[in-house]
């Protein structure tokens, strides 16, 4: 990347959320991560887990958009044989969440303060001991950063974050399902089991 100093304010820090559907085979994580290393793409977070399709895993990769044009990331990912589908969610309406566990120091005097803070962030207390408690919080990165900041004065003993997982809003998916044949879709629709093309007035926020 250019080493020239930015004139004026730093351009907006761009991160891209890339979802890769990969074959669930040994070595696939290494193939993906070593690709990023070799091409010089910086990973901010990477999560892997099973998808709804047997034999396929879903990776959510947050890439520093300044380290590489995201389309190069996508194309290079596609070249891996074990990568079945790649989608850049950055231009989509998406929901992105992360989970964090924070083990915070506390005592009888200040515990209730922490519980108040946890309440504000809708964090759960998942473990409690005489001198510490573990908060579990789910949300976007800003929310988790906020809670961490609030906990810092008490002393954070341990912190574990999962990294981002994301999905496109609405009925659109980023999976590799074969489209449902039209005939069958119509039957479902007639039976009132379909809500396609109807956006529900629902948001988890």
């Amino acid at each position, binding site marked *: 990347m250019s080493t020239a100093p930015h004139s004026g304010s730093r351009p907006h820090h761009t991160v891209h959320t890339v979802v890769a559907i990969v074959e669930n085979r040994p070595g696939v994580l290494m193939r993906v991560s070593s690709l990023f290393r070799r091409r010089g793409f910086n990973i901010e977070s990477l999560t892997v887990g099973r998808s709804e399709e047997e034999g396929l895993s879903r990776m959510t990769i947050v890439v520093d958009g300044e380290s590489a044009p995201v389309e190069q990331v996508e194309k290079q990912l596609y070249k891996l044989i074990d*990568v079945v589908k790649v989608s850049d969610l950055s231009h989509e309406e998406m929901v992105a969440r992360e989970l964090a566990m924070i083990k915070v120091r506390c005592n009888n005097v200040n515990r209730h303060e922490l519980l108040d803070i946890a309440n504000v962030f809708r964090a759960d207390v998942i473990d409690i001991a005489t001198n510490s408690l573990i908060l579990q919080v789910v949300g976007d990165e800003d929310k988790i950063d906020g809670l961490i900041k609030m906990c810092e004065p008490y002393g954070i003993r341990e912190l574990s974050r999962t990294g981002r997982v994301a999905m496109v809003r609405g009925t659109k998916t980023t999976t590799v399902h074969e489209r449902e044949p039209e005939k069958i879709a119509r039957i479902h629709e007639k039976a009132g089991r379909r809500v396609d093309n109807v956006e529900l007035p629902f948001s988890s926020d």
Partner: protein
Amino acid sequence: MARMTGAQITLESLQREGVDTIFGYPGGVVLPLYDTLPQFPGLRHILVRHEQGASHMADGYARASGRMGVCLGTSGPGATNLVTGICTSWMDSTPVFALTGNVARALLGKDGFQEADITGITHSITKHNYMCMNANEIALAIREATHIATTGRPGPVLVDIPKDVFQEETEFEWPEQVSLRGYKPTTEGHAGMIRRAAEIIDQAKRPIIIAGHGVIWGDAHKELVELAEKACIPVITTFLGIGGFPEEHVLSYGWLGMHGMFYANMAADYADVVIGVGMRFDDRAMGRFKDFNPTAKIIHIDIDPAEIGKNFKPVVPIVGDVKRVLPKLMEETKQQTRNDWLRWIDQQREEHPTLHIRESRRMLPQAVIRSLYDETQGNATIVTGVGQHQMWAGQHYFYKRPRQLITSGGLGTMGFELPAAIGAQVALPGQETWAICGDGGFQMTMQELAVLVDEQLPVKIAILNNGYLGMVRQWQQLFYDKNFVSVAMTQPDFCKIADAYGIRAIRVEHKSEVELAIREARNHKGPMLIDFQIDQEENVWPMVPAGAALSETIEAPAEELAR
């Protein structure tokens, strides 16, 4: 269905994929495979002297024939010795199948004797690789690996098999179909994009085609000639694209790049439309990216979508097989003539005759190559190493057909020449094959001379011997203030080395002997080596210094021309 051992399945599967030759070297864990080899008389095993030789031979075999080359090594050092050759095929996109043994399953990951994580090591230099943990995985792995190596943009693959998997017995089942969810190369170009490209070409005043290795591997040289002739577009090639367009054709203007023809570089830089066909806009070809012809509209046709937009943003990207895209593009373009544009390049060529060889009392390497061209009537297959001799071989021999020049362009692997020439000769036994070597690179793989004797291969070897690592010496002279460090080499007597193997050899010390030596080698039935004691300090011109733009191509300075 029959019960077979893993070793039998391996060889049976390779044979079913059309493999007839394996370049290999035995060792502990592949003993079960070698034990089985006599059961497959259709598979010719060629015993190399170093596994690097095996991987280059498989590569040379592939490049000469267009078919997949196969190399085989044992675990650990056998496998790691293949790596340089695998990476060479990776960079130049050639279909090479590397087969390796590994330690028995129980020892995997325990640092057993001669264990190396070769699938891990080769992740980034293969299209894909496999480790077969059961004998019943082998057939599918070989089928898939072959499919991956030979389709789309070709490339190397590796299959690693532990020793006890070779010994395991199972039912052999041949998978008729290969279906990979994550691998579906696009071959048909987008019709709308092709139409847009044709419109731009029709309106262009100064279009140029840059043809790459993809034209050769896509078997699209005829289609390229037809397009160029119909739309009257001059064609230059990349270094690896040499032979993809006949150099004797009136629309051929040589090749571009760091040591390309001056007029080819100028034409690429002055063109208003640049059509990249089966090439990847590499830095050695294009010079400094940001100053390459900033006003040109780029049309980029390649089968690998990741190459499009990697170094240059094209106005029209076309992902597809060049063999399918070019005829459609030809249909859409108008027939026309562009005499002014051709005259402009012709004039550049007259004023800057890169391929003119000056009169000199010295033995000029350029003249040696030109003599070879004349003596062989331009019909020989030329295999080169890397360095000055490679550039001279590219410049002063003229190539008329695809696969006629075999050279390591992307990785620049010294020592490629001799083993690759062996592979090429094995693939095409009747074809006159010359290995053009540097004195440095030849010493990297010269142990493979033994294979010429074993297999009675009539490869002719021409060493352009200047006693230097010539290209490095040239850079030290030009860019490091003549601070010559570690470039002068004491050479052995190459003729005696050849002689020790029972290979005929002659040394040529004067330019008057060049033709005679070449004739003698051509008339000799077996392999032969010629040690050409060329002028020691001749440099390769023209040159685009590293990091410079094509427009900054430097021609030979006057004092060098006076030598």
